[in-house]
């Protein structure tokens, strides 16, 4: 069922301003079409009949605001989503990264961690896991708890296993998890190199240098101005000859930084050429 139209455009503006003043989260440069849907979806889930009720709850109940942040962000993710992308990482990018003594990878907007675990599996199979660090960050603290637990719904495993095989995986995917009724607990060793932390792409700065930054299906929720800022953040976080990977419908082509990056084949992976 479609979400109702409870909050109007001008009310969205006010809410964004109030949230910024009360909590410091800045949603003003989020793509308005998606953001409005999320707000109205929250009204439906939490049964707010009016904008006034939503606003009151958000501004006066810090615990509710945590829940609001969880619901306002989209946390739809999969392991090995777009298998050909992962095949490209496996075959083209990881052999390059293998030449570094320490491989640092940033999964920005990692949500519940499925992509970070997928990367860990790739690195294991490439024999590079012992010398890597995978940083997974998200604006939303509660999804990071799920990522930390490493427990995912069992009913997804069929899809994930198919994705894994299409990505060039040769092993039995089920060796990476232990099934327990309706959940699949992933091998502890896949977390050894995983560092999870909150990070807001809108307001936080670069915190390390990486050879690979993966940020898929996050930028679609930002307007062009914010996208450009985030591209600059990624650029500042990437070593020369490092790689930036985006979602299957996202592009660096329209960015001012585009000229400093070479696209790898027809995948949404770009290599940074020397320019700092």
């Amino acid at each position, binding site marked *: *069922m*479609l979400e109702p*139209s409870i909050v109007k455009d001008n009310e969205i503006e006010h809410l964004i301003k109030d949230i910024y003043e009360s909590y410091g989260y800045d949603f003003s440069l989020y*793509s*308005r*079409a*998606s953001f409005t*849907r*999320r707000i109205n979806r929250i009204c439906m889930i939490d049964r707010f009949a009016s904008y006034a009720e939503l606003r009151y709850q958000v501004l006066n109940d810090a615990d509710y605001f945590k829940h609001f942040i969880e619901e306002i962000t*989209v946390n*739809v993710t999969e392991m090995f989503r*777009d*298998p*050909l*992308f992962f095949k490209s990482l496996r075959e083209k990018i990881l052999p390059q990264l293998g030449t570094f003594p320490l491989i640092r990878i940033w999964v920005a907007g990692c949500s519940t961690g499925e992509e970070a675990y997928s990367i860990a599996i790739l690195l294991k199979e490439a024999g590079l896991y012992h010398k890597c660090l995978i940083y997974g960050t998200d604006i939303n603290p509660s999804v990071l708890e799920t990522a930390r637990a490493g427990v995912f719904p069992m009913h997804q495993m069929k899809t994930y296993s198919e994705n894994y095989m*299409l990505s060039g995986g040769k092993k039995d995917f089920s060796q990476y998890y232990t099934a327990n009724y309706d959940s699949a607990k992933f091998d502890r060793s896949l977390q050894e190199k995983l560092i999870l932390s909150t990070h807001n792409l809108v307001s936080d700065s670069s915190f390390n240098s990486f050879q690979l930054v993966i940020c898929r*299906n996050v*930028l*679609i*929720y930002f*307007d*062009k101005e914010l996208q450009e800022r985030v591209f600059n953040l990624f650029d500042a976080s990437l070593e020369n000859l490092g790689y930036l990977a985006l*979602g*299957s*419908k*996202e*592009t660096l082509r*329209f960015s001012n930084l585009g000229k400093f990056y070479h696209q790898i084949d027809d995948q949404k992976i770009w290599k940074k050429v020397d320019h700092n």
Partner: protein
Amino acid sequence: METHGGKTELVVIGGSAGSLQVILETVKNLNVDLSFPIVLVVHRKAQAESILPKLLQQFSDNEVIEIEDKTEVKNSKIYIVPSDYHLLFENKNIFSLDGSEKMNYSRPSIDVTFRSAAEIFRQSTVGVLLSGANSDGVEGLKYIKKNEGKIWIQDPESADVDYMPRQAIQNVEYDLIVKPNNLANYINQLK
């Protein structure tokens, strides 16, 4: 047929099972100088390489484009919503993709795009619902109607799978019932 004489700024077509033949037949016969864009929301399996844009391009003189993040909306072009994303309109000039939860077990969902089209293009929208096996699109058509846009529905007798058009006919006040062989003609006549 022109109930309010308004200018058409968008034709958005939703289809599911059995709609591909109708879409092929239609894109083959569209005028190349249409003064509005055509957007196709078709249920299909999520896959890495989409062949649908290439297939339609072979049949059409209008440029066929699979939408990416922030793709610009241009007249006379045929846009296809990529699988595994919902399509929204940021404004009349820019598309916006959204990877949120499935709606009616579908992503893309026809309802989501119809509604966004109705809210942005209002009475300048023509919404077309074709053959299909679920009721995705019916609720979205209501938003188009509420905003005084036009609603066309494929004649269920002509549909491979008639559930979707029948649901629409029963639940929405429509403007026109179309058969596959004259949909392009009706679109070409829009001003």
